[in-house]
């Protein structure tokens, strides 16, 4: 057991890469989720179709297959990605598809009366979305987004299969150098658990902040958010 603890520089290096993957993947997923989620609320049927195609396709693919495709198949048609780029791209595209459903569901869950009040104040369509609808929808998005970030963090373990030195990758290394199978995996699992708990804490803080801004009692906001999550099947 002490041998495994002695390998802490490797563990920390791996954990740092896992955190980096989580942050970069989440950033990409957030951008995609907003872009395609809002496309799903558009008036034009063509723009909405864009949302459907993205969501159905990337929710349907297995992230590992996608990553293998970027890493092994695409170089053969002349597109060569670094492992890190292929990893972030596949994680972001996949979680972004779930996020897009959360965004679409949350925007639709803002009461229609709010939209009507914005029309009565003569706000332009862009202003209605930016000033009235989105700020309220964000409160509903936060809890499911938090779950998605944790899913992405866990999902990032697969990058070890394309030789990225994340936390999971270090397990094999440490196991080989120390011969301690049990404690190596226990240490790795506990580190993942800690990262997940920290992420959960951050999400809860963010929720509380938004609740305060909207003058909501937390319980109610969470119930509505759960309803949204249930509706999008996230």
């Amino acid at each position, binding site marked *: 057991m002490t041998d495994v603890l002695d390998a802490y520089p490797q563990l920390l290096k791996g954990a740092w890469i896992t955190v980096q993957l989580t942050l970069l993947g989440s950033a990409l997923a957030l951008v995609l989720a907003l872009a395609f989620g809002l496309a799903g609320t558009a008036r034009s049927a063509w723009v909405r179709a864009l949302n459907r195609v993205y969501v*159905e396709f990337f929710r*349907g*693919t*297995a*992230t590992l297959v996608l990553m293998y*495709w970027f890493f092994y198949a695409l170089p053969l*048609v002349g597109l060569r990605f670094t492992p890190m780029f292929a990893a972030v791209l596949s994680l972001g595209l996949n979680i972004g598809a779930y996020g897009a459903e959360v965004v679409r569901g949350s925007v639709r869950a803002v009461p229609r009366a709010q939209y009507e009040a914005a029309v009565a104040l003569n706000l332009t369509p862009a202003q209605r979305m930016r000033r009235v609808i989105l700020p309220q929808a964000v409160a509903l998005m936060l809890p499911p987004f938090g779950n998605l970030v944790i899913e992405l963090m*866990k999902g990032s373990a697969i990058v070890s299969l394309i030789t990225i030195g994340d936390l999971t990758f270090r397990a094999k290394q440490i196991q080989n150098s120390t011969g301690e199978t049990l404690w190596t995996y226990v240490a790795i699992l506990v580190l993942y658990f800690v990262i997940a*708990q920290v992420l959960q804490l951050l999400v809860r803080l963010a929720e509380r902040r938004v609740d305060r801004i909207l003058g909501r009692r937390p319980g109610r906001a969470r119930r509505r958010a759960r309803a949204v999550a249930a509706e999008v*099947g996230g």
Partner: protein
Amino acid sequence: MDWDWTYTGDILPDLLDGLRLTVTATVLGYLIAVVLGLVWTLLRRTPSRVVNGAVRWITEFIRSTPLLVQLFFIYYVLPTWGITLGALTAGIIGLGLHYSTYTAEVYRGGIADVPRGQWEAAVALNLPRPRVWFDVILPQAVRRVLPTLGNYLIAMFKDSPLLLAINVTELLAAAYKAGSHSLRFLEPITLVGVLFVLVSVVSSILVRLLETRTHATD
């Protein structure tokens, strides 16, 4: 490099073999997840604080750590305790165990949604405890959450390629093997990708149909 159809035809049998393993692992893993999830849920309703708390933390731990690492744990650590499992068996157990923590949440939500009046009616009839659960509450709860459980079957199917990391020659591993023989990865992996999208999209449509039917009969 162009798409080679002859080559595609050559590797197809290998891929189908892989698909067989993928489906086996998904279905058996799902059975474990569906049963074990219910066990977790019922254990959390026991009066014992210790059991309740232990189950809560165990499921929370399994849910918030990666399936891949859990597969490694089952495949590499258990043998040091004298429990040696074949790769496929380890994979099935890993999938089932991981997803049982998700199905447990689903059941919990379903049970919470059963109207209070149903409990009160059961108490009024003076039914013994097990009868209340198995004849009154669970049938209603499970019927409500059937579509959600269906979604997790799809999710498990999409996570099954992880089994290649413990040497199960499922679909993606078969594709990878075929590719490394000829150093042509484009056809096999693209094929696998298309297959996954097809199966997932078709089955989500089925789940949505199930959803409308469940709502309709409510």
